[in-house]
């Protein structure tokens, strides 16, 4: 019988005191309180001993610690193949190895000898993958040979396959089931409007416009949904190339002899049975897996990664592809209607363009996006979404009252808020304009206060010039002391352009029911690749990391 109490059965006050004891931060009064609660209480003592056993266990298991795997700021340099860190065969002790009580072989996975062995294995894998990759890429046109996982086809098999592909060229490889808006199909150099029900052939290229979507079924029954501003090229039936945009693939229940393969500018993926989404832009590919697992390799160097269910991976040059926990589901993006843009007090040109770009970044984060204007937003829209992104809106036209009525401050879904007027409504800041939140103009020069934080997106330093001038304002806020404060206006220590609360943190009003990020939207907006948009990408990723997808998500 498990005699160790769950933390949920322990009063939060005691839990906090025990943690403070562990961290060495208790005052004399708090220590006396802790003693008083523990004395003569077997349940609380049991909890205390168990918690301290975790603390001592960490020391004990890591007491022969090697230097850490990487010294880099996350996301800014290539890391070793850290997927191996989860691979028992590389890093030594299987997770379920029996360990005798106090046996000194309870070693960290970072023990020097295993780490060295892991590096040798990784180097060998990279070398063989690189060789196979360059051999596979000799072909100029994917019709001549299918997209191949590195090193797994002989030359004769490839030739036979190419011949078969040519023979099958005229056969449909997919059917376009459903579409919204004017989707174009390019075939043999000619573009025409796609119609629902039409057969699609190998090399057909589908262009989905803004606001549009397309659903198709491959031969072999895997289904794909294309998002807005997406270009997708069909291969020979079990292949596709996502040039940019979003595709969600449902290959569950498929019994395919050969894997389904999706290529992007940065990655090649192989799937047997999975339900996952891929987002691609000029800088990166994001893969988010809802069910099953996806194998992906980075095209630049062949680094491979296995992305399990409930995880996502970023495939890009000089970015760690290590899978990280991530929610799936839909993102709700709330925007202003065009009528509001005409409001005479709201001088924000280019906001339409900026919103479109933020929306695109959401899709290209491999998140399906539901867009609602503030006018049409209802409580039902908030249900079932994994993330809410609040775009900008003009003040005093009734939107504040609507957001209050929707009780967004209590919503147990992560929110990324781009509008400073909404900061106090969500409890993120106080309510006095130009004191607790406000708008800045002119050159955007920033200091990155916590460069190591995932939200900093790899930015570091002070006096960083993001853009030279802006007639339109950009947002800042002054959050509570417990907030993570990431980027501030240069020479304005209280004006934070990016700040965040983790779930449970004390905000200015209430505690955060889920992660919250306040971040500015670049009002220039015209530059799709503006580095400031990386901060929004980081906000999305950080929020989704906290979304529960299974038992283990409760803990992390």
């Amino acid at each position, binding site marked *: 019988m498990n005699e160790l109490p769950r933390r949920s059965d322990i009063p939060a006050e005691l839990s906090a005191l025990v943690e403070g004891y562990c961290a060495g931060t208790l005052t004399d009064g708090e220590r006396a309180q802790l003693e008083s609660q523990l004395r003569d209480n077997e349940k609380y003592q049991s909890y205390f001993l168990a918690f301290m056993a975790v603390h001592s266990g960490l020391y004990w298991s890591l007491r022969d610690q090697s230097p850490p795997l990487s010294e880099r700021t996350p996301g800014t340099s290539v890391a070793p193949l850290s997927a191996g860190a989860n691979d028992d065969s590389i890093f030594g002790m299987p997770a379920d190895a029996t360990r005798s009580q106090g046996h000194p072989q309870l070693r960290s996975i970072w023990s020097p000898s295993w780490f060295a062995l892991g590096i040798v294995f990784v180097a060998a894998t990279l070398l063989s993958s690189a060789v196979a990759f360059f051999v596979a890429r000799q072909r100029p046109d994917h019709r001549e040979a299918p997209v191949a996982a590195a090193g797994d086809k002989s030359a004769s098999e490839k030739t036979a396959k190419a011949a078969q592909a040519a023979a099958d060229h005229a056969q449909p490889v997919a059917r376009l089931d459903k579409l919204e808006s004017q989707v174009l199909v390019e075939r043999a150099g000619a573009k025409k409007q796609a119609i629902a029900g039409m057969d699609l052939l190998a090399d057909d290229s589908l262009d989905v416009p803004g606001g549009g979507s397309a659903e198709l079924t491959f031969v072999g029954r895997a289904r794909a949904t294309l998002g807005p501003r997406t270009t997708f090229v069909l291969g020979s039936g079990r292949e596709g190339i996502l040039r940019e945009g979003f595709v969600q693939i449902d290959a569950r229940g498929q019994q395919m002899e050969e894997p389904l393969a999706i290529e992007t500018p940065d990655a090649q993926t192989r799937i047997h049975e999975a339900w996952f989404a891929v987002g691609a832009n000029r800088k990166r590919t994001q893969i988010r897996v809802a069910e099953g697992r996806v194998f992906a390799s980075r095209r630049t160097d062949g680094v491979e990664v296995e992305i399990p269910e409930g995880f996502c991976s970023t495939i890009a040059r000089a970015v760690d592809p290590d899978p990280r926990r991530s929610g799936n589901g839909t993102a709700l993006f709330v925007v202003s209607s065009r009528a509001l843009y005409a409001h005479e007090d709201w001088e924000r040109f280019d906001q339409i363009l900026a919103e479109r770009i933020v929306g695109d970044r959401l899709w290209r984060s491999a998140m399906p996006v539901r867009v609602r204007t503030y006018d049409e937003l209802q409580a039902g829209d908030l249900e079932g979404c994994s993330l809410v992104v609040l775009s900008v809106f003009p003040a005093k036209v009734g939107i504040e009252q609507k957001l209050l009525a929707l009780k967004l401050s209590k919503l147990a879904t992560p929110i990324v808020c781009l509008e400073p007027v909404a900061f106090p409504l969500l409890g993120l800041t106080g309510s006095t304009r130009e004191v607790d939140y406000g708008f800045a103009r002119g050159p955007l020069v920033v200091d990155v206060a916590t460069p190591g934080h995932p939200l900093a997106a790899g930015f570091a330093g002070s006096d960083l010039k993001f853009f030279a001038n802006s007639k339109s304002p950009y947002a800042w806020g002054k959050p509570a002391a417990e907030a993570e404060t990431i980027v501030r206006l240069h020479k304005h220590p209280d004006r934070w352009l990016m700040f965040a609360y983790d779930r449970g943190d004390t905000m200015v009003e209430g505690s955060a029911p889920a992660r919250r990020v306040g971040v500015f939207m670049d009002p220039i907006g015209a530059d799709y690749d503006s580095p400031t948009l990386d901060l929004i990408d980081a906000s999305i990723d950080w929020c989704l990391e906290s979304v529960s997808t299974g038992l283990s998500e409760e803990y*992390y």
Partner: protein
Amino acid sequence: MDQNPDVNVVQERIGNQDCNPERRDRFLELFLTHQNRIFRYIVTVVPRWVEAEELFQQTSLTLWQRWDEYEPEFDFTAWACGIAKNHLRNYLRKKENQQRALGDDLLEQLTAMHVEKRSYLDELQSALARCLERLPLDRRRLVSLCYGEKLSIQAVAEREGRTSNSLYKQMRKIREALYDCVTAAIGSGARE
């Protein structure tokens, strides 16, 4: 056993004294099997690694010095924790450590419970390795810096470009998450 790196450490502590090899081997066998429990008990009372490690070494030496007093029918863990408790009392009685001290009566209660629940605590620590591997890489890195390299929170914060406050918060969440994970792991194992 001679290839166990900890053997050399303990022998160093013992000092390669001229003694009966059989007696020494028997001590080492028991000590190495139970040392994790002794360390765990000491850290419970003195959570800071530097002091805990020093007290652990003192305890190890005293255990060897008093090995003649040990009877085979004794519970080694109870006996060893009793000796550790004396070292802890002496440490806590020093003026500069008094502000961190747990009261004597509470210390007695915790010592007794620690011995009584040692099997569950062993199981918890076995589950800890599995739960550690499930941590995201960035959090494992923090754990490695704080517990492996024994850096202070302030040193880690400086190194990572974070504030101490945010790091305290994150380490709290990591410890709590690991606790939840190991208790769930033990719970699900018990149901099996």
